[in-house]
């Protein structure tokens, strides 16, 4: 039983991290039809900004969350700049070009991080009040993993509320469905694009701040979970937030389970599952099959 709880907790924690990147990706794709590699760069920036704001001190609970949120806001500001300068020009171009331009932006962000923070690894330290293990039904689970799981589900719920229960959400869904018609009906499409983009970037920055604690903070962080995030977006269905969440949690939990039972399979499990699901259901779990595709 304690084993079971252990790997479920790890699966949820890992999956929530991937989901924070994937949620922004899937929203941006759903609304703007732009598949952005640059999201990894914002994730990395979130981690670096958190490190910068921490200033080398060991952070206690409230200060840690404050630093993470401020870091995410900082990344949001960079996101606004990126949207205005680069992304606005990508909306009209075919998808393949946006893939390439955003990959270039990813490289650029990595280069900037190296320029500012150097080539070495930097670290972020928090007190054990944030990260110690608690005993849950006989299993020893890291409090941090629980926090991540909670944040993941909270973000999924909030996004779902935003998209389905607010007027902005309606505008968002309308723009995603048919941007020309939405614009004709008076929806400020540019505004919807910008807000969606910044929202996605904020989530990635938040993910990065949360990751700063657990992963090594190097420019490589930009590509660390990126491919997994892409996989999760496509498996869940492009444009579907819940699809991304379910896919992220399911794949990560599968991975965590295999690690405890069949370790030599675990290495391949993520991509094998990805290939398997895409072969059976190319539009993803919650995606819509486009006419004639």
């Amino acid at each position, binding site marked *: 039983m304690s084993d079971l709880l252990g790997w479920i907790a790890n699966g949820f924690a890992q999956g929530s991290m991937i989901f924070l990147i994937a949620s922004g990706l899937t929203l941006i794709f759903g609304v703007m039809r732009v598949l952005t590699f640059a999201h990894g760069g914002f994730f990395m920036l979130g981690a670096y900004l958190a490190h910068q704001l921490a200033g080398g001190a060991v952070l206690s609970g409230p200060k840690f969350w404050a630093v993470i949120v401020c870091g995410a806001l900082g990344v949001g500001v960079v996101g606004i700049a990126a949207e205005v300068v680069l992304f606005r020009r990508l909306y009209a171009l075919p998808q393949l070009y946006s893939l390439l331009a955003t990959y270039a932006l990813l490289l650029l962000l990595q280069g900037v991080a190296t320029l500012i923070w150097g080539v070495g*690894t930097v670290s972020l330290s928090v007190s054990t009040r944030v990260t110690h293990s608690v005993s849950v039904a006989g299993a020893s689970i890291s409090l941090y993993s629980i926090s991540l799981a909670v944040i993941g589900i909270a973000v999924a719920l909030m996004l779902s509320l935003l998209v389905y229960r607010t007027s902005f959400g309606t505008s968002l869904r309308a723009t995603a469905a048919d941007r020309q018609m939405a614009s004709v009906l008076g929806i400020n499409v540019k505004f919807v694009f910008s807000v969606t983009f910044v929202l996605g970037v904020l989530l990635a920055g938040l993910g990065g701040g949360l990751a700063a604690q657990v992963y090594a903070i190097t420019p490589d962080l930009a590509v660390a979970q990126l491919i997994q995030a892409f996989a999760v977006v496509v498996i869940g269905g492009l444009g579907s937030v819940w699809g991304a969440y379910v896919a992220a949690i399911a794949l990560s939990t599968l991975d965590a389970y295999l690690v405890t039972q069949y370790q030599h399979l675990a290495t391949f499990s993520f991509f094998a599952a990805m290939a398997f699901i895409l072969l059976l259901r190319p539009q993803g779990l919650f995606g819509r099959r486009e006419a004639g595709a």
Partner: protein
Amino acid sequence: MNPKTIMRSISPLAVVALALAVAACGSNSVSPGREQGSGTISIGIITPTSGADAILGKYVVDGATIAVDQINHSGGVGGKKLKLVVEDEKLDPVQSVKDMRDLNAQGINVVYGFASSADCLAAQPVAKQLDMVYLGSCNDNSLVSTKFDPHFFQVAASLDSLTNAASAFIKSDYRDVKNWDMYSLDYVTGHSQVDAFKTSLAKAVPGVQLGKETYAPLDATDVRSYVGSIKNAAGPAKADGLYVFAYGAADIAFLKQAAQADVYPGYAEVVNVAGDVVSDEGVGAQLQPTWNVYDYFYKAYDNPLNQAFAAAFAKTYKSEPVAWSAQADIAMTSIAQALKKTGGSSSANKMISALEGLSFDSIKGQVTFRPSDHVLEQSVVAYHCQGDAKSSTGIACNHWQVIPASEVLPPSQVQR
């Protein structure tokens, strides 16, 4: 022909002309030609100065620079000064080979560096073909056994040495830890290292039990599940030891996530083979007490050469030297000594015979290049680090133990 057709025709021609011009300029701009015999002797350095491991490249270049400065200060080699030419290998074996050719085209025959064993292996055919000598910090065992080639000299302590050192250290300090679990990375070297450790420890501490083995994917950043499985394997508190073989970002990920998952309380000691100060600093203040087993620790060698080296390094680069810098220093020292023996000639044959059996004073004391397999006979050091929020680097390393060469050196596997 109307203007439109002309316009249409010109653009591809223009592009091609531009491309050819660029290629012509490119091939001319790379090198100023041979430099030997003009008052300086150039030594090539191939190391990652960009990309994921750029920090290592920086340490290598810094260490080599300090070494060369000191050598030049005391007269150089036969009156000639040494000069370093650095090329970026981007952790790519194909790029390493390109760099070797580039350096060779500039008249350089002696090269040091190579961050990974794949690079050293890739460089072998080129070194043979172009008659170059290369010294590497690659520590793969095959380079000095099954894939031995006389053009290569191994400056880093081989993985077998590190394993033997870990066992010797455990035997002397933690003999009463009866069960060892192992964590490594899921690639060929990861597995072979664990196997070597099991054999070597069983010999050093008879009756020891070898527990669970866990292998995490080579490139994984999130190893919490693997850490979790170790935690479940740990027996009653403080009864077991944990052997870790990981380096770089994988090492940092493990150390961070193990600290958070409260793995450490379950173990009496955690021994991190191939862990070094760079990884520990990457973890920072949350590093739990860990013993590293690696080539060099700046506090552990109390001789005038090392003191001068560490002082010069700290003064110039405002940080302490690490193993990568130390290896570079030792390599430069050996090259300078060999060049003195050959009278300044850097031809491969002469350098090889000069280096084989060369015994010299280095920052790690007296070391020798074993003639049979070109392994550097050197000690290994086990040093203890843990997080310290008050320290500027985030960690404090205050205990160490030098394990002499005689206890760690594996027998030569090359018959010559």
